[in-house]
């Protein structure tokens, strides 16, 4: 810009993600970096755990054992696992309604998650929040809430606190493509950019907000353009490639810890289940069913596993072991949680304010 311009009337292509949004693209094994096998194997184990736990939750919902709404992130495991790699417990992380994976990727207890979903006093939020309101301060997760976009400015404030603290900590805000339609998303990016706050904005663009494909809600299918407008450095990445996510996240976080301003990651991914609940066919959006089967070919877990196997780092037996371990942990946690007590009646009023009134 600078010079006055005539009206730009070029019509915009509505699909700008190209092959990143292609259900039939990127089915091949990941390209692995040199070294670093230990973490890759740990990442595989963690993704397998997240999936097993969410599958178990889905089964319990289907069995009528759960009443609170559960939004499953099955298929999206690579994003939080990739980001979490560069985080430390003093960082501050915030999520939304679909945050089981954010919670578990950060190291959250499976038992407390199950107990929370069952409304037990032993739950992550002592039974007061359920699936949509998770917290895990030990690992830096300060809160996940279901009001779309609500934690984005809160994360900016955590970034402000981190900057005032001056210890190189950062804040991470996880949200979806739908959240970028809330005005507060833009206010938050502008605030972070203007104050140069260490906030990592991570948009899990799974192309859907509830039943609506992004093409019905926005003039382009890529949201990184908003970061460009707010002058926040942005990276666009395959959200089903844990290696790629970890790489851009590490880059961004390193800059931030060194005093850089905010950064934005658009991770393109896809959820395998309905918007809410365990069923796959819940939704009614654009071509959802046909796409789903193709997207399963882009499975972030399988793609990492096959890459590791092809070089002999992990075998099918190891994968099976991970899966059994994970299912066993989920089952044990569920069994324990079922036995746990509910909050006492006084909790209803005693937890409203600090101290009595």
């Amino acid at each position, binding site marked *: 810009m600078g010079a006055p311009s005539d009206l730009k009337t070029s019509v915009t292509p509505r699909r700008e993600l190209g092959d990143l949004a292609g259900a039939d693209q990127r089915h091949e094994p990941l390209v692995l970096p040199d070294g670093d096998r230990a973490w890759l194997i740990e990442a595989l184990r963690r993704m397998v755990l997240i999936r097993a736990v969410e599958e178990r939750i889905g089964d319990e919902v289907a069995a009528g054992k759960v009443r609170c709404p559960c939004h499953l992130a099955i298929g999206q495991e690579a994003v939080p696992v990739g980001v979490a790699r560069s985080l430390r417990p003093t960082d501050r992380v915030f999520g939304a309604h679909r945050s089981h994976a954010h919670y578990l990727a950060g190291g959250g207890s499976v038992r407390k998650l199950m107990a929370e979903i069952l409304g037990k006093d032993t739950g992550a939020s002592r039974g*007061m*929040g359920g699936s949509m309101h998770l917290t895990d301060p030990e690992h830096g997760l300060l809160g996940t809430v279901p*009001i779309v976009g*609500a934690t984005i400015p809160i994360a900016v404030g955590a970034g402000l606190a981190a900057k005032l603290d001056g210890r190189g900590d950062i804040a991470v805000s996880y949200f979806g493509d739908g959240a970028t339609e809330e*005005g507060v998303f833009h206010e938050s990016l502008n605030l972070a950019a203007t104050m140069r706050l260490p906030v990592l904005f991570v948009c899990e663009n799974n192309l859907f907000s509830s039943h609506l494909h992004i093409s019905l809600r926005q003039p382009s299918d890529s949201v990184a353009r908003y970061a460009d407008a707010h002058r926040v450095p942005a990276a666009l990445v395959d959200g089903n490639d844990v290696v790629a996510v970890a790489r851009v996240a590490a880059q961004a976080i390193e800059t931030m810890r060194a005093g850089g301003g905010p950064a934005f990651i658009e991770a393109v991914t896809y959820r395998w289940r309905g918007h809410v609940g365990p069923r796959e066919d819940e939704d009614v959006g654009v071509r959802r069913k046909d796409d789903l089967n193709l997207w399963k070919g882009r499975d972030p877990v399988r793609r990492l596993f096959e890459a590791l196997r092809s070089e002999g780092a992990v075998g099918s037996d190891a994968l099976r072991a991970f899966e059994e371990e994970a299912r066993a942990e989920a089952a044990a946690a569920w069994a324990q949680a079922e036995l746990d007590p509910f909050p006492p009646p006084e909790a*209803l009023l005693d937890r409203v304010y600090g101290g009595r009134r």
Partner: protein
Amino acid sequence: MGVTGYGLAIREGFEYLLANHREVFTIGQGLWSPWYVGNSMTDLDHRFGRERVIDTPVSELATTGAALGAALCGYRPVVIHPRVDFMLLAVDQIVTQAAKWRHMFGGSVRVPLTVRGIINRGGEQGAQHSQSLHSWFAHVPGLRVVMPATPADARDLLIASVLCDDPVLYIDDRWLYGVESELSPPVEMDLRRESPRRVREGRDITLAGAGYSAWLCVEAARVLAEDGISCDVIDIRVLNPLDARPIVDSVRRTGRLLAVDGDWLTCGFAGEIVARAAEAMAPSAWRASPRRLTLPDAPAPTSGPLEKLYYPTVNDVVAAARQVVGARADTWE
């Protein structure tokens, strides 16, 4: 003529409006989904076209403002918020814009906007998916607020709201969607003439509430009748502007009042009912002190047992009414 449920009665209201009034359209999240707003709008998009049944991005404030803008240009939009909690993002457009434009610009501007906020609570959804806050909106001059308690009102108050030239907040409650009754053909009521209605006659105590609370009062009155307590029940229907006469007339007759409300106690609608009666009546006309039954002043919990404690039930209304009737005016302390 068969029975119709409250949810489908709302849908009938929309069908009537879209079929008979070209200037009506609807806009909001979930309108192209078969389940987003229960069964209250299913397939309207296919029947009337997606130009008049518009699904939107997740942008409550702009969507509401856009509906207001279309209303200022002669349309009669209904903007739908699938949860009151989400509607709070649009408070500026509802309260500081829509409710004030007529007055602020001289009194002759027509603002035929209907905002539909759905109470969608329970089911362990928790604090951010359970708010009602009709007490807030009934507080705002210039904004008409209606809460239907029956299938007939669900349909006909919707029609009246949309045909009204003032902004109206229409609040329906998912907990009533299963309530059924026989419906006569739709009528076009003048909302300015609608007011609280005496839906049951009794001598001993006045039970008053809006929406689901009115339903609780009616059910409780049945139970109370069995042990000889006869209740006058007032279904508020129109919360703002509030015509308190039917309430006061009733309390003058019974000398006792239990205000039931599915919102919080402090500065809530139940308090307004009590205050109107207390101001209008002679202290000597009371046979017992008035009483409120509301949500406890706490956010909604998720845990099942706490959720059961949280929401007033028919039994709670019955118990509270018995207490009021049992109390003697002179000895109450």
